[in-house]
């Protein structure tokens, strides 16, 4: 840190400090600070920063191998990494497999109840408002994240969940939920950012259901770091882990423009009216293209996708398209 050219651009987070090194790079310092209840409970746990960095780097590397692009560039020291300089999206993404925490409180669902399928929630990053849950339509309408990027982020979060659920289960652990942050680079490409550690996830021992994560601190359940260490040791115990490459399904919805005649829609409309269904003003036929992307690890694939949508899949003069991801 002594030779940093721009330590003046330093941002202090609750548990991490970020130094901007250049347009491309930042240094992230994992501190021993720990907080809960939006800063209501604060402490310092020696060795926590080092522990979190080790787990976070491990998990990011696993995700990279699974084809999910992350901000991680290199480990600089035991408590610092060099990462991509990104504009962090102003929403936190939470994936839940089992009811716990604010989900249980909000909806009155007993902690430990398994959800029918993984569930994604968004929380707006706003300290004054205490990072409230935000509806995805509100995210879009407030201009925080455009709809297609929000969908991409959600699909990415579910990819991450698939990889981690498998990884942790091999270590005899249950992944209850976790929080992710994403950032975009100058070209608008989305990368997974921030840290992924026991500070940002709930992990239980699969047999005893013992809490191994930051809930130990939140609820004063004893030695916090001992739980963090169990997670690391269990993952170490698996040995080499090669995650499955994560696919991404893209849904391109193509609609005819309203200013353009749509003869197929006209015929369909007449048929619908003849069938006795009244109150129909207009019928328009478009198409849907489902593309399964085997390797989306280079975020630039999204540019290429938009290019083929404009140049091949649609005729922009007569059609519009929207992208969905899953």
């Amino acid at each position: 840190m002594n030779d940093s050219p721009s330590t003046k651009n330093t941002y202090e987070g609750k548990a991490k400090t970020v130094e901007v090194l250049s347009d491309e790079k930042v240094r992230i310092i994992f501190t021993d600070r720990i907080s809960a209840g939006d800063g209501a409970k604060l402490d310092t746990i020696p060795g926590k920063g080092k522990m979190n960095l080790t787990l976070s780097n491990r998990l990011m590397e696993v995700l990279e191998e699974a084809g999910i692009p992350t901000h991680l560039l290199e480990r600089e020291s035991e408590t610092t990494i060099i990462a991509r300089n990104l504009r962090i999206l102003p929403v936190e993404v939470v994936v839940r497999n089992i009811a716990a925490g604010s989900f249980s409180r909000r909806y009155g669902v007993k902690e430990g109840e398994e959800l029918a399928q993984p569930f994604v929630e968004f929380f707006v990053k706003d300290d004054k408002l205490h990072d409230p849950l935000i509806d995805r339509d509100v995210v879009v309408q407030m201009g925080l994240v455009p709809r297609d990027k929000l969908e991409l982020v959600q699909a990415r979060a579910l990819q991450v969940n698939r990889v981690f659920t498998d990884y942790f289960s091999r270590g005899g652990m249950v992944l209850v939920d976790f929080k992710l942050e994403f950032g975009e680079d100058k070209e608008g490409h989305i990368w997974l950012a921030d840290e992924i550690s026991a500070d940002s996830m709930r992990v239980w021992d699969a047999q005893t259901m013992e809490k191994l994560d930051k809930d130990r601190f939140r609820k004063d359940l004893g030695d916090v770091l001992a739980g963090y260490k169990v997670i690391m040791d269990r993952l170490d115990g698996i040995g080499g882990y090669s995650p499955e490459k994560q696919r991404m399904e893209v849904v391109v919805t193509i609609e005819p423009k309203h200013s353009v005649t749509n003869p197929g829609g006209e015929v369909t409309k007449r048929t619908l009216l003849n069938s006795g269904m009244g109150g129909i003003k207009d019928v328009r036929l478009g198409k849907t293209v489902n593309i399964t992307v085997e390797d989306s690890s280079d975020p630039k694939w999204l540019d290429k996708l938009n290019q083929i949508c404009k140049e091949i899949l649609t005729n922009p003069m007569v059609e519009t398209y929207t992208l969905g991801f899953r």
Partner: protein
Amino acid sequence: MSTIGVIRFPGTNNEWETVRALQSFGVEAKVVEHNQQIDDLDGIWLAGGFSYGDVLRAGAIAGASRIMKDISRSGRPVLGACNGFQILTEADLIEGALLPNTTTRFVCKWIYMTITENDSYLNELQGSTLRIPIAHFEGNFWSESTPENIVAKYSTRDGDAAPRANPNGSMDNIAGLSSNDGRMVGMMPHPERSCFKHQGSTDGRKIIQAFLKEVHG
């Protein structure tokens, strides 16, 4: 002697009648596959049919092909008939789009078209009304505004571009257009199917004649 290449994509099916029609003018004409080079060609004909099954939109896949970029760069005169016209619009070499006919039916019939004043090699036929067949499902020309490069309109036998002479719903009865530089012409009618007496009309010869004149420079 000039050589005309008739480009064949998977699904093109007018290539041999086009070659036969061109040969009757005493020029060299041959079928050129879409993945071949075009360096030795003096003129290019994009023939009709259903390139790549016309998936996505008529002419869309062929329009995005490498050979269309080569043709664009080559500077050679081009005539696209039917699917060839659709390919030219999809390749953005001629403006507009060809939508399904407003009747939602495949239309196969004789039409009259009248050559308008234009900046392409067809201008010498200005005012001529020609009897030529059409056979298409997507011939309904559409553009955001009336295009400048119209070369032919569907008309009555007397040259009146009346709505009743419009077989497919095309904007302004448009049957054919050229590129901005006039080097490429696209039309829905099939000149190669009206070249011999036994076909029922020889009016298509006038179009081919004008095209070949451009090829010979």
